């Protein structure tokens, strides 16, 4: 709608006078302008003109290795996945134009939920239109007035927004601090409902939660446990079910939240559970009811991908090799990393400040490497991070190329 802004005769000034609701964004606008005034390419306005594979694209005119996509298992160009999507487009059309509880549940949505139930070996699966909505919907619906939510302070925005949408009392504890969580659970008034919310992998630093200890503490206090395994699905645990599987506590997790927009390689979110009354959520969960369901092609690609991920152990092994090599190589070059050892497919490189972080991001882009620039307030402790997420389709040679790019960029910016 940008044309409207320039329309002649419109009183443009009145929109920026007193009472302008946009005044609250002024500090951010100033920070952005300051950053871009130095000639810096805009880190938050990158366009991928062509996507060549899960690991290569043409970005801002350059052939670029992708190291910031969360496309962990490289399923986006899998021939079977694409074939399933094309067939669904032909058979079922481009969209459902309806809610899951009205006209928006097609055969493909059921088949996708069947694939999830099999993948996690759980009784129930509910597919949402995004991962964000899965957290928003489940959290706000199951924790209501008078209930208590105890959660990690570094939780994802979708978890915080789910808390905000509901009416429960919200009690955070210091990141991955089992004792702090234990104490807070112990102080909740007797008889109140308790929901503990944890993540398997925390996406900013790529560290994992001590789920074995945390889930045991939650259960000791009679709390229900929700674990967001968005960044571990398909990769961590024997069957790729997540950190909770690797920690041997998946049986004590009441709800697992996940997404299709990472390892699965499309878009959508879900919750799986063994709770006997789980299906009632389809009628009471507003972010599930009051939105259109995913297009048939999306659920078809998701189902095909999930079924392939069940047999992805070789790819998982290669992804671990990539993660270990990149982590070890960056550490040896002298970069400061988010974790002392590789814990997931995310390797976070800590930048001294936003300015040099942005310079480093641009230097890498010019080398032909895309990583995520993460800045406050999304980051813990106000850090600026260059977040690298590896893909099972990165070759061992590509990881060496990436390390070379980091070395040259790091030296030119003066970080190493």
């Amino acid at each position, binding site marked *: 709608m940008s044309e409207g802004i320039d329309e002649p005769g419109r009183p443009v000034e009145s929109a920026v006078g007193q009472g302008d609701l946009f005044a609250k964004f002024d500090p951010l606008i100033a920070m952005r302008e300051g950053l871009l005034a130095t000639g810096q390419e805009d880190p938050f306005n990158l366009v991928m003109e062509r996507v060549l594979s899960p690991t290569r694209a043409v970005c801002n005119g350059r052939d670029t290795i992708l190291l910031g996509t969360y496309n962990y298992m490289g399923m986006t160009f899998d021939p079977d996945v694409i074939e399933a999507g094309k067939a669904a487009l032909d058979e079922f059309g481009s969209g459902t134009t309806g809610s899951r509880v009205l006209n928006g549940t097609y055969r493909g949505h059921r088949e996708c939920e069947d694939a999830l139930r099999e993948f996690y070996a759980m009784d129930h699966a509910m597919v949402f239109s995004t991962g964000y909505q899965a957290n928003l919907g489940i959290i706000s619906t199951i924790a209501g007035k008078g209930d208590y939510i105890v959660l990690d302070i570094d939780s994802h925005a979708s978890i915080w927004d789910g808390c905000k949408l509901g009416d429960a009392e*919200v009690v955070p504890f210091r990141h991955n601090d089992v004792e702090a969580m234990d104490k807070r659970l112990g102080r909740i008034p007797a008889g109140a409902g308790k929901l503990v919310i944890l993540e398997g992998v925390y996406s900013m630093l790529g560290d994992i939660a001590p789920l074995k200890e945390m889930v045991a503490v939650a259960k000791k206090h009679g709390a229900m446990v929700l674990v967001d395994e968005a960044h571990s699905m398909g990769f961590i645990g024997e069957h790729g079910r997540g950190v909770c599987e690797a920690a041997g506590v998946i049986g004590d997790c009441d709800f697992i939240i996940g997404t299709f927009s990472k390892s699965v390689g499309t878009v959508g979110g879900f919750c799986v559970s063994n709770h006997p009354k789980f299906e009632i959520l389809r009628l009471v969960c507003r972010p599930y009811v009051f939105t259109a369901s995913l297009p048939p092609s999306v659920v078809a690609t998701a189902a095909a991908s999930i079924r392939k991920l069940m047999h992805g152990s070789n790819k998982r092994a290669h992804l671990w090799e990539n993660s270990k090599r990149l982590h070890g190589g960056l550490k040896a070059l002298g970069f400061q990393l988010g974790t002392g050892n590789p814990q997931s497919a995310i390797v976070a490189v800590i930048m001294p400040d936003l300015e040099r972080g942005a310079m480093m991001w641009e230097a890498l882009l010019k080398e032909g490497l895309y990583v995520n620039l993460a800045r406050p307030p999304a980051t813990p402790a106000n850090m600026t991070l260059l977040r690298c997420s590896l893909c099972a389709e990165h070759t061992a040679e590509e990881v060496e190329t990436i390390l070379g790019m980091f070395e040259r960029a790091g030296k030119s910016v003066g970080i190493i």
Partner: protein
Amino acid sequence: MDRAEVDARIRTLAEPFNKNGAEIDEDTTFAGDLEFDSLTVMDFVAAIEDEFDIIISMNQQAEIETWGNLVDTVSDTQSA
């Protein structure tokens, strides 16, 4: 525990977080006068929770703007 004692105990807990050594009275605000960011708030609240063995949920924190509000909240939770 009376309100004055609650105030005194919280005042001791606040010292390490009050980096600029700002004067604190009933109307002192945490975000404005003391310049507490979200992480400082979390640590400060955790220290109070541990000291008094109480919970101050984020819902309650949202209602607390001034030092006086905080002392009232902790005093009320104590007597509850």
